[in-house]
C-alpha cells in the first residue's frame, strides 16, 4: 500500500543524500519525493510517497527517525490532507484541436500555458486522481511529453 510521509529535516547540504541513501540501502520503494524549504529557512520539508506493507512502513519511519538531521516523521496517509501534484504535458494540436483542448482543460481547471505551431503545453495541479484523469483525457490527441512533480501534502486545519 502507498503511504505518504511528511518529514521535517534540517536544511543542510547532504540531507537529501542521507534520506535517499537510506531508502536505496534498505531496499524501500520511493514512489515520489518532494523537498522544499519551510517557513523556517533552517528546516526543509520532504513529502515522501513510499510503497510497502505495515511492517516496512514501520521500519521506514523508524530508520528515518534515526537519521540525525531528521526532526520529525509523520505518516499522513490516514489524515485528512490536501494533496497536490503539478503536471506539464505537451500535446499534439492542430488549430481545431487547440480550441478543443482549451475547452476540455476548462473542465479540469487546467490551462494552456504555451502554444506552438502543432502543439500546446497544458499545466495542471491536483491530486493524483485528477492528474491521471487529465492525462487520460489528453491521450487521444497524442501526448509528446509529460513532466510531473511528486506529491505535496498538507494536513487540513481543524474545522
Amino acid at each position, binding site marked *: 500500500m502507498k503511504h505518504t510521509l511528511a518529514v521535517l529535516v534540517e536544511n543542510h547540504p547532504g540531507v537529501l*543524500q*542521507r534520506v535517499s541513501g537510506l531508502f536505496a540501502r534498505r531496499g524501500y520503494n520511493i514512489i515520489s519525493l518532494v523537498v522544499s524549504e519551510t517557513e523556517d529557512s533552517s528546516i526543509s520539508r520532504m513529502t515522501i510517497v513510499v510503497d510497502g506493507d505495515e511492517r516496512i512502513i*514501520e521500519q521506514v519511519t*523508524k530508520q528515518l*527517525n534515526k537519521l*540525525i538531521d531528521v526532526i520529525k516523521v509523520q505518516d499522513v496517509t490516514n489524515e485528512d490532507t490536501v494533496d497536490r501534484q503539478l503536471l506539464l504535458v505537451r500535446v499534439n494540436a492542430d488549430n481545431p484541436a487547440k480550441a478543443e483542448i482549451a475547452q476540455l482543460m476548462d473542465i479540469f481547471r487546467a490551462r494552456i500555458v504555451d502554444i506552438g505551431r502543432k502543439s500546446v503545453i497544458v499545466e495542471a495541479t491536483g491530486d493524483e486522481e485528477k492528474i491521471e484523469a487529465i492525462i487520460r483525457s489528453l491521450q487521444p490527441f497524442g501526448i509528446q511529453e509529460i513532466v510531473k512533480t511528486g506529491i505535496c501534502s498538507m494536513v487540513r486545519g481543524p474545522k
Partner: protein
Amino acid sequence: MLGAELLLKCLEEQGVDLVFGLPGGAVLPLYDVLRKSKIKHILTKHEQGAVHAADGYARATGKVGVCFSTSGPGATNLVTGLATARMDSSPVIAITGQAASPFLGKDSFQEADMIGLSLPVTKHSYQIRDAHDIPSIVAEAFFIATQGRPGPVLIDIPKDVFTQKVTEIKKPVIRKSLLVKFKKPQMDMKLANMAVEVLKKAKRPLILAGGGVNQVAGASELLQEFAQKNEIPVVQTLMGKGIFPAKHPLFLGMVGMHGTFKANWAVQNCDCLLAIGVRFDDRVTGSVEDFAPLAKVIHVDIDPSEHNKNRVADIPLVADCKDFLKFISEKLWASKGNKEWLRQIGLQSDLPKIDAGRSLEPEGVMELVNSLLDEDTIVVTDVGQHQMWAALYVHPSKPRSFITSGGLGTMGFGLPAAIGAQMAYPEKRVILITGDGSLQMNLQEFAVVKQWNLPIKILLINNGSLGMVRQWQELFFQKNYAESILEVGPDWIKLAEAYGIKAKTFDGFKELEDALGSTFNDREPCFLDIKVNPMANVFPMVPAGCSLDQIWGSWKNEAHASSIG
C-alpha cells in the same frame, strides 16, 4: 588560536587523552600542534589499525575511542573500521583531514568524498566549513556517538579549517532536536506490565541477552540477579559474552549458528523469550521463520528500529535495558518452579569433551586458556574458526571483556583492537586469539605492540588455512578447497622476532600447558604460534538458513549437508 588547536582543546574537554592515527598532508597542521596538547598520540602503521584500535579502546571502556587520518587514502582506509564499529554499536570518532576548501569538488590531490563514503557506515558525519563551528560539532559528535544506541561518528575537516584563525571561541551548543531524539525513553508501562504477566504465566521462560546488556554499566548484575531469583535460564549472543557467569547452572552458553546444544534447544522449546539488547541477526536466528517457534517474544531494546525488523515481537519495549531490569526485578523475584524445564534442558548434550592430551586440538587450547583467566582478563579475537572456538570455550567473567567483531566479522580487527584495549587498561591482561589469515591482515601493528611494550599475549591458532572458509568448503562444497589453504605462510617466529617480540612455536599440548601460565604472567608482549590440527572444524553447527533444530554435533550426515550446500 588556530582551528587545529581549538579542535584539540575541545577533544581534551571531552576527556580524550589518547588518539590513534597516522599523519599526512591534509592533517599536517593538526599534527603540528599536537605536542602542545595533553593528548597522547599512538602512531599505528595503517589507518585501519588506528580505527580498530580506537574501537577496541571504546569497547573495553565504554568511552569514545578517537582516531585521526589524513584525507583521501588515509580516510578511505578507515571505512572498514567504521562499518565494524557501526555493526557492533561502538562509540568511535574518526577525524579525517580533507583537501582545503577551495579545492573541494575538483578531484584535487587526495580528495575523497568522506561524507558520501561514510554515510551508510556511521551514525552521523560532519564536515566542518568554519573553525568557529568546531566546539559545537565536537560536542554533538560525542553526544551522538554515546547516547541511545552508541555508534561511530566521522568529522571531516578541510586543511584550511585547521589553519583558520579563530577570533571568538563559541560555547558548544547541541541542537535541541538532538536532545529530544536521544532523550532516555520512558518505558511504556502498559507493555512493561504485559511483559510481567507473560513471564508470570510462562512455564518455559528463557532470557536471551546480547550486546546491549554489555553496553550498560550495571545491567549484567541486575540480569544475573533477576535470572537467579526467578530461576530463568540464560543464553547469550556473541556480543553478549561476559554478562553471565559461565559456570552458573542457569547459563546455557551461546545461541545461533555455532551455539551450544543446550542454548539452541532451549530457544526452540521455550514458551517465552525475554530478548534484551539483541537484534536477531541471521547468525543468531538461523531461519528466522523457525526461530523460537513456540515463544511469546518480549523484545527490550533502546533502538526502536530493532523491533519487528527481523523477528516480530509480541511485546516490543523501547527502554534502557537497566531501567527494564530494575522494573521487572521489583515485580518478579521468586522462582515459580521451573525445575521441570531446567531438567529438560539438562538432558541436552554438553559440548563434547576434548581429549587434549595427544594432538593439539583447538578446543583443548581454548579450555586451557579459559582455565588461566583471571577476573581482569580481556580476551580479544579475530574472525574465523578460532573466534567461534573462543566464544564456545573461553569465558571472561565481566562485561566488556570479550572483544570481537560480531556484526561485520572483520578479519584483521583483533591485533589493533587488542592494542586499544591494552592501552585503555595497561594493568589488565589482554589475550589476543587470532588466526593465521586474520593476523596477516593487520600485522604491521606488531610495531605498536613493541614500541609501547604492550604485554599482549598473541595466541596464533595456526591451522595453515583460512580455516572457516575451508570448513564451509569441506561441508558444503565437496571439499573443493579453492584458495583457502595458506600455502606460503611467513616464518612466524622470525616475523615476530623481527619486530623484537618474544615468540615460540608449540606443536604439543603438554609443552603449551607448561608454558602458558608463566607466559600469561609476563609483563611483556609475547607471540605464541600454536600449531593446531589443521583439519579441525567448529561444532556444533547449524548450516546457514536452517532452523536451530538442525544442529550438527559433528560431521557425519553428509547426505544432509550436500542437499543444503
